[in-house]
């Protein structure tokens, strides 16, 4: 047997090395087998990286863009990815199948969506959608077939219904309003969210509605202008979708009376009540003061009470307060000042107590002192 030459030996060794590396694919551990739309739709499920080929290490190490799928009202589905994330423009291919044995044939996307002439998504028609079978979608780089990624999705959690339509309002009673709308899909599969506000509210008021197409507002003010809108979600009886539909066209009810400027509001709501209160309090104070200072004038009807009840006590009968009566009593004393006449020197000495009438009438005559008889 001929001995192989040195270059040939090296070449054979290199080939063996490459063969050994090629037969040892690197697989990352797979994540959860089943994915739901909780939080983020199109979440990656099982992930298979390409084998590590040293010749194209730079390309195969790059992960493929994440795919996002939404089923629009169970009429069609779009699965899209960010084609601009690729370092160079690449027409990625999409294949899909269902895990159920009836629809497990691998098929390529029949209707690609393009963005700047590069594939960026796939459109699925209604007949290709099976909501309750595990949907497996695979994205692949055609230039590097081993560079591929798979996702397993539950389509019932990725349904987005159309927005509700034909909103109508009717008065159930004088102040009760009922809102009705049409759903685009089976009523028992949808939950709805009603938002309403008046022209004087700053924010919306929300009310969830489950499995029916009506909402009642028990008390409305006819002087306000109300606005209603509704949106729907495929949750929870037929799916666990997190994404809401678009809002419906809004509907209005009521009258658009003028809002009023803040100063008129301050006048109506603050000044008038305070002013009224102040007026009432001041009137009360005046009344109390008058009651104390000006006693009431006794009527003739009560005149007999002066004799029968009060025994001639005028002040008590009239209602003058004791304090006022006492204050009117004189609280001073004055000594009696006797004024006597100094008799003239000429003839006024001999007169007795009787005296002449002329002297009795003189201006300086002192009146006789009267003493009670013993």
């Amino acid at each position, binding site marked *: 047997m001929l001995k192989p030459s040195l270059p040939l030996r090296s070449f054979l060794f290199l080939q063996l090395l490459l063969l050994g590396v090629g037969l040892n694919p690197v697989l990352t551990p797979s994540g959860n087998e*089943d994915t739901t739309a909780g939080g983020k739709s199109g979440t990656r499920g099982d992930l298979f990286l390409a084998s590590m080929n040293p010749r194209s290490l730079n390309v195969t190490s790059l992960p493929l863009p994440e795919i996002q799928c939404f089923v629009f009202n169970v009429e069609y589905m779009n699965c899209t990815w960010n084609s601009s994330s690729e370092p160079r423009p690449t027409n990625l291919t999409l294949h899909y199948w269902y895990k159920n044995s*009836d629809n497990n044939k691998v098929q390529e996307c029949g209707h690609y969506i393009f963005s700047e002439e590069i594939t960026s998504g796939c459109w699925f028609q209604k007949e290709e959608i099976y909501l309750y*079978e595990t949907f497996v979608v695979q994205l692949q780089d055609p230039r590097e077939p081993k560079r591929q990624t798979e996702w397993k999705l539950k389509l*019932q959690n990725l349904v987005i219904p159309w927005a509700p339509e034909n909103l109508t309002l009717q008065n159930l009673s004088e102040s009760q309003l009922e809102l009705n709308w049409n759903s685009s899909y089976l009523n028992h599969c949808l939950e709805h969210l009603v938002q309403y506000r008046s022209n004087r509210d700053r924010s919306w008021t929300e009310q969830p509605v489950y499995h029916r197409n009506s909402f009642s507002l028990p008390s409305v003010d006819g002087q306000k202008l109300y606005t209603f809108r509704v949106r729907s979600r495929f949750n929870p009886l037929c*799916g666990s979708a997190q994404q809401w539909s678009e809002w419906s066209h809004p509907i209005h009810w009521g009258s658009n009376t003028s809002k009023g400027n803040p100063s008129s509001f301050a006048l109506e709501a603050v000044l008038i009540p305070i002013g009224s209160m102040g007026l009432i309090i001041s009137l009360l104070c005046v009344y109390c003061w008058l009651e104390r200072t000006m006693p009431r004038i006794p009527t003739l009807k009560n005149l007999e009470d002066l004799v029968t009840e009060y025994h001639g006590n005028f002040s008590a009968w009239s209602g003058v307060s004791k304090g006022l009566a006492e204050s009117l009593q004189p609280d001073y004393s004055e000594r009696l000042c006797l004024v006597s006449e100094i008799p003239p020197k000429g003839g006024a000495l001999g007169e007795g107590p009787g005296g002449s009438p002329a002297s009795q009438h003189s201006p300086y005559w002192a009146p006789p002192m009267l003493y009670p008889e013993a």
Partner: protein
Amino acid sequence: MERMLLCLMVILLGTVAHSSSSPGQDRRLMIRMRHLIHTVDQLKKYVNNLEPELLPAPQDVKGRCEQSALLCFQKFAGQLKPPNTGDNGTRISLFIKNLKRRVPSTNASREQELIPTCPSCDSYEKKPPKEFLERLKSLLQKMVHQHLP
């Protein structure tokens, strides 16, 4: 003889009236399914406290075998149990008991019971309690979507 015929007629009419798909029957089924889905959601909060580790969990059930798969879920739900008793243990036991309660049957479900080709319960892949409950919820949603108007 006439009386016997009359009784048989009454029984027959009563059976037909009971078995027909009335709106009341659908409504009862809807209420029960809604209650089941709510129970599954509540039980998912306690998955970390549930045993055993693995349970057969049907998925991607073939057409017309949903009723059989639901019976399998209800059978294995009885094996779920909290590791210890307590406030949460009592609540978990109530949820599990609710899962095992019978679901009102419809015409479609009665027809499915006659199909012998549905897989047996033990043939399904075993999964942890969290995945078990997710698949149960998925099956219930499928049944609501397909069997109710």
